[in-house]
């Protein structure tokens, strides 16, 4: 499968020579093998048969032989359309449903934010619901009281917090539920479609909270139909269709295939076939990268590139960028060289994105060939050198001036 063998390229596996040969493979926090879940729908005849010891045949297979693995500190995206089985998968992993066959292994207590998880006694006020949910999940009374004001504040319900839930709109219920379900810092999350509730302002809040949790090393699974969310949160993703995993790999590649986006074919100009599959550089030293291209036309060909890195909870961030520059206007074989003084990147793995485009007379650009994470074919850039605690590093020059002592 194209792209899947590269899936490991962007994870925290060792690059030869990068960190002195140490392998750091994180342990897996969620693992399931050959997981299947069949819902047996009993009608009036089969009920009596089952009650008196028989078995029932009619079943609806919601999950079929699903195998997943989530490593510590990572979020796995599960994409799928409505009805693909995402909710069932999450609930089975979370222990609400018992699997029909297969194994589920979870390395600890799970914070689950299920869709429609609010269904319950609607006579309760928002406050009572929060209290009840927290105590059902094992929170002591004193902690509950302290958390309540935080929950009320986050959900932005105002006075409605003290009103019965049946007076809430669907959006308010969802906000209350998200606020309650994420109030306790957890380590393993199962999130089901709840990140698209509320207005942009509230969504920004939700993402901030999620990033806070991620900063403490949370891991988990995000199941959604919204691919933009997957791109923000997950490095790896898979696609669930009618209960089966039909695709997996790095999330941009998977999303690209999921959406069925076309890939530009490099006829007029393209990166040469022998373009290196990985580039290396040393932090804080001058770097020169070379990109061979083949040009077949006589129009102005421009080159642009960017260096990006994936930040969990934010998505792909541009770190460095070369604006489109004219490189050739006649057919031929060329080598493009990009030189950067004192590379301001810290050791790690980055994503090199290369763009060849043709500049039209109106000032627009037509893409000719692309190597980019959005198409699943970006080129990794491995930077080695002195490790620091930041992502990038500024070339600072120190000097001191003594003042009056």
């Amino acid at each position, binding site marked *: 499968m194209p792209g899947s063998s590269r899936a490991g390229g962007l994870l925290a596996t060792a690059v030869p020579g990068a960190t002195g040969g140490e392998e750091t493979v994180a342990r897996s926090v969620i693992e399931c093998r050959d997981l299947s879940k069949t819902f*047996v*729908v009993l009608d009036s005849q089969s009920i009596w048969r089952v009650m008196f010891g028989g078995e*029932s045949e009619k079943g609806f297979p919601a999950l079929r032989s699903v195998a997943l693995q989530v490593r510590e500190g990572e979020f796995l995206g599960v994409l799928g359309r409505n009805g693909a089985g995402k909710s069932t998968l999450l609930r089975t992993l979370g222990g*609400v449903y*018992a699997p029909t066959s297969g194994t589920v292994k979870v390395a600890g207590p799970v914070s*689950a934010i299920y869709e429609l998880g*609010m269904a*319950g006694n609607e006579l309760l006020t928002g406050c009572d619901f929060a209290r*009840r949910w927290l105590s*059902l999940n094992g929170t002591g009374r004193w902690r509950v009281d302290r958390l309540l004001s935080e929950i009320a504040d986050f959900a932005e319900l105002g006075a409605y917090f003290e009103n019965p839930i049946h007076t809430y709109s669907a959006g308010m219920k969802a906000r209350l539920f998200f606020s309650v379900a994420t109030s306790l810092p957890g380590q393993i999350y199962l999130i089901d479609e709840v990140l698209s509730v509320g207005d942009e302002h509230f969504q920004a809040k939700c993402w901030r909270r999620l990033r806070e949790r991620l900063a403490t090393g949370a891991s988990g699974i995000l199941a959604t139909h919204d691919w933009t969310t997957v791109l923000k949160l997950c490095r790896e993703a898979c696609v669930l269709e009618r209960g089966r995993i039909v695709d997996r790999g790095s999330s941009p590649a998977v999303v690209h295939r999921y959406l069925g986006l076309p890939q530009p074919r490099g006829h007029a100009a393209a990166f040469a076939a022998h373009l290196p599959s990985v580039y290396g550089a040393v932090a804080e030293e001058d770097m020169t990268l070379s990109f061979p291209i083949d040009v077949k036309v006589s129009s102005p060909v421009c080159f642009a590139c960017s260096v990006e890195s994936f930040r969990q909870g934010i998505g792909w961030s541009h770190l460095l960028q070369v604006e489109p520059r004219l490189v050739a206007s006649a057919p031929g074989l060329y080598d493009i060289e990009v030189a950067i003084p004192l590379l301001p990147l810290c050791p790690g793995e980055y994503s090199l994105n290369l763009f060849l485009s043709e500049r039209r007379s109106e000032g627009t650009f037509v893409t000719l060939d692309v190597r980019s994470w959005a198409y699943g074919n970006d080129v990794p850039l491995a930077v080695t050198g002195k490790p620091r605690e930041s992502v990038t590093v500024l070339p600072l020059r120190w000097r001191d001036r003594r003042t009056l002592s």
Partner: protein
Amino acid sequence: MQILGFDRADARRLLNFLRMGLRDRFLGSTLGLVWAVANPLLMMGIFTFVFAFVFRSRLPGAETSLSFVIWLISGYGPWLAISDSLATSTGAVTGNSGLVKNLAFKTELLPIAGSLMGLVPLAVSTCYLVALLVLSGTRPSLSWLAILPVLVLQFVFITGIGLCLAAVNVFVRDTAMVLPNVLMILLFSSPIFYPLSEFPKAVQGVLQFHPFQVIAEGYRQPLLYRAWPAPWSLAYLAVLSVMAFLGGLVFFRKLKGYFDARI
């Protein structure tokens, strides 16, 4: 440590559910707590009035109606608890579908908690009974504590039945609706309003082994006659209760795999 497939976390969860149930039923509304006390009292009051003053029933060999009332209440109080327990546990799973669909826990705990809710009407009726006893001049005695084993066995027995009914109710929702009628039939066919001796001789022999008769006697003997209940009846009740509980548990566990699509 696991007993019958339940561990300490389950015990905590059970207490949580019980607290939840109590809060929903009694503290949720303004009149909730009042009703918890008033309802049993009202029922007992009505029956007291009807049987003591309208029908003027008397126990064979007794003079006053008060003693009859005391005899009546000592059987009816547990009955109230039993019917409450059964009604609550039958609807425990279907009525908490939100929890079942979103929280990972052993679903058996819901009917068990529902059954334990019957402790409230039991407590109310016991207090009422004690008041009546004191009124009639009986002094409290240590033998009253003999109702405790009967109490425990009663709940074990009823929980077993409740588990069965709860599971069946998921598939045949009419169960919860038919239950009150069935209980009514059982009530009037048990020696609660009328002593065993009033039944036709032919039936008496069988009725002696009626579980509700055994339970009622288990309350009456210590409270009214300061005697310990007959050992054989306790043993019989114990066996019955344990069988009912285990049977109900196994039945529920077998069916709970099919709940998912019906809840």
